């Protein structure tokens, strides 16, 4: 029947038109030489990874990078599940994650790509300027509950934190809450708000005078107040504000390395990308985004 042929014809045309390439409309680059790199993980690093990817794609148009966040834990899990090429992490990979990776046939290789400071932020109207690490640990574990106990107004303390999948959260747990002691089992107090992103933390800090929070230095906006921190317990210590200088000379106590992990030693396009990240050009982007560049390799 004539009707059958007409519908078949339309169907064939639709299928053929769906086969056109979208990423290379001028057809200049032969399809086989495109290099796809999948980069996922830390939300702290996602803006940095995006800036790197955009810059790299401009100088290397045959590379296609896809960047996404989800948290350091998510990135490492993706690396273990073989759904990503490079995992961004704002914390070191845990030994249990290394075991999981090895049992899945993957050997995670670590690269330090930048450095970061964790800034402690409060509402701009909060009179408190300085805190010791011990005080921070007591605040977040629930021992100190009112601002007046640390020299502020008579207000309850509202603790803000990132979610458990965040590398920033894990780093804060190990280095601040537990003061770096591995055997310590202190946990965040149960009424710590686990907020899904830096923007939500920022919104609450700006509006709520009771709040205290922590986040990477690159996410601190001028309308938040940063607290100066010291690690020492002595009388009259010097409180340090976070900045690129204090991170690199080691005086700011809550500083960390930012990592990229690959499955096994990287080869080909992934190797070139990671080498480019260690170059001066890429580290300039690090400074522009508010992070701390690694010292020249």
């Amino acid at each position, binding site marked *: 029947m004539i009707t059958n042929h007409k519908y078949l014809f339309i169907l064939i045309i639709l299928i053929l038109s769906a086969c056109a390439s979208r990423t290379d409309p001028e057809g200049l680059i032969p399809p086989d030489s495109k290099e796809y790199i999948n980069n996922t993980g830390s939300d702290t690093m996602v803006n940095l990874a995006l800036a790197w990817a955009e810059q790299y794609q401009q100088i290397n148009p045959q590379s296609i990078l896809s960047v996404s966040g*989800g*948290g350091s*834990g*998510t990135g490492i*899990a993706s690396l*273990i*599940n073989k759904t990503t090429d490079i995992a961004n992490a704002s914390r070191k990979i845990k030994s249990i*994650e290394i075991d*999981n990776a090895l049992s899945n046939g993957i050997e995670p290789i670590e690269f330090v790509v930048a450095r970061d400071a964790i800034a402690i932020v409060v509402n701009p109207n909060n009179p408190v300027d300085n805190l010791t690490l011990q005080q921070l640990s007591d605040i977040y574990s629930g021992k100190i509950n009112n601002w007046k106990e640390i020299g502020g107004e008579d*207000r*309850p*303390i*509202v603790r803000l934190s990132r*979610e*458990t*999948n965040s590398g920033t959260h*894990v780093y804060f747990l190990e280095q601040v809450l537990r003061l770096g002691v591995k055997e310590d*089992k202190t*946990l*965040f107090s*149960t*009424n*710590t*708000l*686990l*907020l*899904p992103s830096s923007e*939500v933390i920022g*919104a*609450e800090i700006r*509006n*709520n005078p*009771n*709040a205290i929070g922590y986040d990477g230095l690159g996410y601190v906006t001028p309308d938040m107040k940063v607290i100066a921190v010291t690690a020492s317990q002595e009388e009259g210590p010097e409180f340090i504000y976070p900045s690129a200088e204090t991170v690199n000379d080691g005086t700011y106590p809550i500083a960390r390395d930012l990592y990229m992990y690959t499955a096994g030693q990287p080869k080909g396009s992934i190797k070139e990308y990671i080498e480019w990240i260690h170059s001066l050009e890429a580290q300039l982007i690090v400074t522009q985004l508010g992070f701390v560049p690694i010292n020249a390799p």
Partner: protein
Amino acid sequence: MKLPTIKSESLITGIIKITGYSAIIFVGLILYFLLSEGLPALTEVPFTEFFKTRWYPIEDYFGILPMLVGSFIVTVGALIIAVPIGLLTAIYISEVASRRTKEFLKPLVELLGGFPSVVLGFLGLLILSQYLRQILNLPTGLSALTGALILAGIAIPAIVSISEDALDAVPKSYRDASLALGATEWQTIWWVTLPAAKSGVLTAIMLGIGRAIGETMVVLMVTGNAPMMPTGLATFFNPTRTMTATIATEMGEVANGSTHYHVLFFIGIVLFIIALIVNVTASTFVFRRKKRSERILS
């Protein structure tokens, strides 16, 4: 004599049969997947662990009680606000409002129901939580109360549109008979029309419950996600953490097949069972056999 079969008829019947069965098959497959990924949690974690009060999965604390309570508080709070308002709005639109007002209000309510929940969550985070904190002098506006209010805002349009249809479907003869016997307008609405539309109204409320308990984005942004156990009446004004928000945030970071992964699916099974109980309870009300008197009258 056998009737001649028309080919297109049997083809269409076949297609309809397949789509009908496929709905059952999809639900069955989802249930199978849930069970196969969630039940291993029962073997990997001692059952009593689930009833502890601490949820901190990256260090193997798997107590889901705080989230059960959180989901419960937020849903019940939303319903306490949404059911009276929704029902009264539906009564107003269908029974009391003039024709012009009705034509204006009904599409407006539908529009409210069409709002993506993320937008409402965002508004709740930036605006509602700050107001609540200042007005009620709370430590933080990110609390169960804010979550319940926004969930009520999401459930109300669902309740209103279905209840309004149910009330509209009550035969005019019921109202006329009641008014003819000397009842006032309100007595007619409350004692005659509403009971007659009972099954539809209950369906509307069940739909509202379903939307509230399954809502993820709003509670993720607005309740603070703190897994706290209840401490008396103040719990409503404290931050809380729901099961849906837990699954949404943590599912991305779990390694496939790890204990945490299985526990998250187990929480999904718990949610499924709760939804099942709510629906079965509703069905027994809705599909009850009509009393002899009702069959005669209608």
